[in-house]
C-alpha cells in the first residue's frame, strides 16, 4: 500500500542560525530531501546604490565598507579603481603595493571567516571558528595599525590611500606572515584530513563548471568548479602582475572543493604579501586629487577579484561631484543564483553546508 505523504514547506530563515544574516530559503521538502528551493532576500536592503547618488565620490567610500563587511578593503579598492578609471588618475606605485597588501590581508581574513562558518554549519561546535577568529583578529589588528579602524576601514582614496604605512607595520606584518602558515597547517590537521568533514562535504552541493559559468558564479566558487579564472592573473590590476602565485583549482565543484580552494588561497595570499613586502618602493602614497573629485561626464565599469568573486562597480558620471548612477555588481548576489540548482535533491543538512560554502554575505546581496 503506498503511503499517503505530502511535501512540507519549510521556511529556512529569515532568522536562522546558519543563514549568515537575514536570508530566507523557501524549501519544499519530501521528508528531509529538498524538492524545490527558492531564495528570498532583501531583508537587509539599505539602498546603497541610491544613497551613492547623493554623496560625493569620496563619501561613497564609506558606503562600500558596508557592502561585504568581512572584506571592506576589497570593496574600497573596487570602488576607487572605478573612479580612477573614470577620471584617469595615475596611482603612485607605493600606494598600489600598500593596496595589494591590505587587500590580500583582507582576503585571508574573509576566507578565515568563510571556512570557520562553513565548518560551523557542518556542525563543529565553533572550535575551528574560534581558531579562525583568532587569526582574523591578528589581521584586524594589523589593519587597525594601518588605518585606525577594524571593520569599516575607508582606507583607500581616489588616487591612492589615505595615509602611508606606519613605521611598526612592516615588522608586525612580517611576524604575521611567518606565523600564519603554521596556523594553516593546523587547520589542515584539524579539518582537511578529517573523515567526518570528507564524508559530509565531498560529493555534496555539486556545481559543474558549465553551470558555474552560466550562472555567473565567480571567485573561489568558480575555481572550485574547475575553471581556472582569476582576475588577478587574467586581467592584472594594481601590481598583481609582478607577483608569483598559483591559482588553486578544485576538480569537482563540491562543498569540499570550495573549502579546499579557500584554504589554499590563504597560502597564496601569504605568498603575495611577502613578495609585496620585499618589493615595496618608497615615494608618494596619493596622487594629487582634490577632496571633491569631479570626474568628466562618462561611464566606467571596472571589477576586481574580491574574496567572494568579481566585485564590479559601474559608475555613470554627469560631471558633478556625485555620480549619476553607481551600480554595484556584487559577487554574493550573483553567486546566490546558483544556490537553488545546487541544493535540489540533497538533504536539509547539506542545504546549510552548501549555502555556507558559497560564502554569501547578506550585506552584499541586499546592498
Amino acid at each position: 500500500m503506498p503511503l499517503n505523504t505530502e511535501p512540507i514547506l519549510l521556511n529556512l530563515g529569515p532568522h536562522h542560525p546558519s543563514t549568515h544574516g537575514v536570508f530566507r530559503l523557501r524549501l519544499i521538502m519530501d521528508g528531509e530531501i529538498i524538492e524545490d528551493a527558492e531564495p528570498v532576500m532583501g531583508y537587509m536592503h539599505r539602498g546603497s546604490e541610491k544613497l551613492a547618488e547623493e554623496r560625493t565620490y569620496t563619501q561613497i567610500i564609506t558606503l562600500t565598507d558596508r557592502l561585504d563587511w568581512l572584506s571592506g578593503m576589497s570593496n574600497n579598492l573596487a570602488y576607487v579603481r572605478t573612479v580612477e578609471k573614470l577620471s584617469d588618475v595615475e596611482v603612485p606605485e607605493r600606494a598600489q603595493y600598500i593596496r595589494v597588501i591590505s587587500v590580500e590581508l583582507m582576503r585571508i581574513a574573509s576566507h578565515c571567516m568563510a571556512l570557520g562558518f562553513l565548518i560551523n554549519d557542518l556542525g563543529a561546535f565553533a572550535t575551528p571558528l574560534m581558531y579562525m577568529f583568532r587569526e582574523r583578529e591578528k589581521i584586524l589588528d594589523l589593519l587597525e595599525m594601518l588605518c585606525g579602524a577594524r571593520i569599516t576601514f575607508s582606507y583607500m582614496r581616489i588616487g591612492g590611500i589615505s595615509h602611508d604605512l606606519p613605521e611598526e607595520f612592516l615588522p608586525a606584518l612580517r611576524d604575521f606572515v611567518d606565523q600564519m602558515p603554521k596556523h594553516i597547517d593546523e587547520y589542515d590537521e584539524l579539518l582537511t584530513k578529517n573523515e567526518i568533514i570528507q564524508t559530509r562535504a565531498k560529493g555534496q552541493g555539486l556545481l559543474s563548471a558549465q553551470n558555474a559559468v552560466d550562472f555567473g558564479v565567480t571567485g573561489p566558487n568558480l575555481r572550485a568548479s574547475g575553471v581556472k579564472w582569476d582576475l588577478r592573473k587574467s586581467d592584472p590590476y594594481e601590481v598583481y602582475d609582478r607577483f608569483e602565485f598559483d591559482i588553486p583549482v578544485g576538480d569537482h565543484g563540491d562543498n569540499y572543493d570550495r573549502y579546499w580552494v579557500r584554504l589554499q588561497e590563504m597560502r597564496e595570499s601569504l605568498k603575495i604579501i611577502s613578495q609585496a613586502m620585499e618589493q615595496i618602493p618608497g615615494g608618494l602614497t596619493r596622487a594629487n586629487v582634490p577632496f571633491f573629485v569631479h570626474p568628466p561626464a562618462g561611464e566606467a565599469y571596472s571589477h576586481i577579484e574580491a574574496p567572494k568573486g568579481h566585485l564590479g562597480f559601474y559608475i555613470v558620471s554627469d560631471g558633478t561631484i556625485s555620480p549619476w548612477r553607481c551600480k554595484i555588481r556584487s559577487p554574493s548576489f550573483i553567486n546566490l543564483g546558483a544556490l537553488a540548482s545546487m541544493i535540489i535533491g540533497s538533504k536539509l543538512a547539506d542545504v546549510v553546508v552548501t549555502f555556507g560554502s558559497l560564502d554569501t554575505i547578506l550585506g552584499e546581496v541586499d546592498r
Partner: protein
Amino acid sequence: MTSFYGLGALKGLIVTLRYLFRKPFTVEYPDEKLVPNPRFRGNSFVWYEDRCTGNGACAKACPLGIIRIVTHPTSRPDIGNLYAIDRFDIDTGRCMFCALCIEACPYDAVFMGNDFERATKTRDGLVIHKEDLVTGAKLPTQQFRPQLEAMEYKGEEELDQHEAGRWSL
C-alpha cells in the same frame, strides 16, 4: 588509501587537546584592556578652538551631515577679524567614524580621540557639544595627522594646540 580510516578525525582530537594546555588568546575586557593603535579612530573627538576658523570643511565632508557649526563674525585684537564659533556639535550617535572630517580640515583643528568607552543611556548623551570639546581631554590620535607620527606622539599625554597642528599658532 594510504592512511587508516578514522585517523584524521583522531588527529583532530589531539589538535584540540593541545589547546587545553595553552594560554587563552582572549583577554577579559574590563580587567585587562588592549591598547589601541596610535591611529585608532576612537569614539570621541579632539578639537582645538583656537585653530578652528569655522569654515565648515568638516561639516561638508561628513557623509552623514552630523557636524553642526554656528558662527558669527567678530574680531580679536591679536588676530584681527575672524569667525567666533557659537556651536560645534558632533552627533556621535550617528557618526560612523570614517575620519573624513579630520581629512578635510585644512587647519588641523579637529582630531580623532582614542576613547572608546562612551556608552550612555540616551541618544542625546552621545552628542558632543562645543563645551565638552573645549573642556575634554586633548588626547588626539594619529589618524590622518602625519605630524603627530613624525613627533612619535602615541596619545599618552595631553597635547596642546601649538604642538598639534602643522603650522604653529
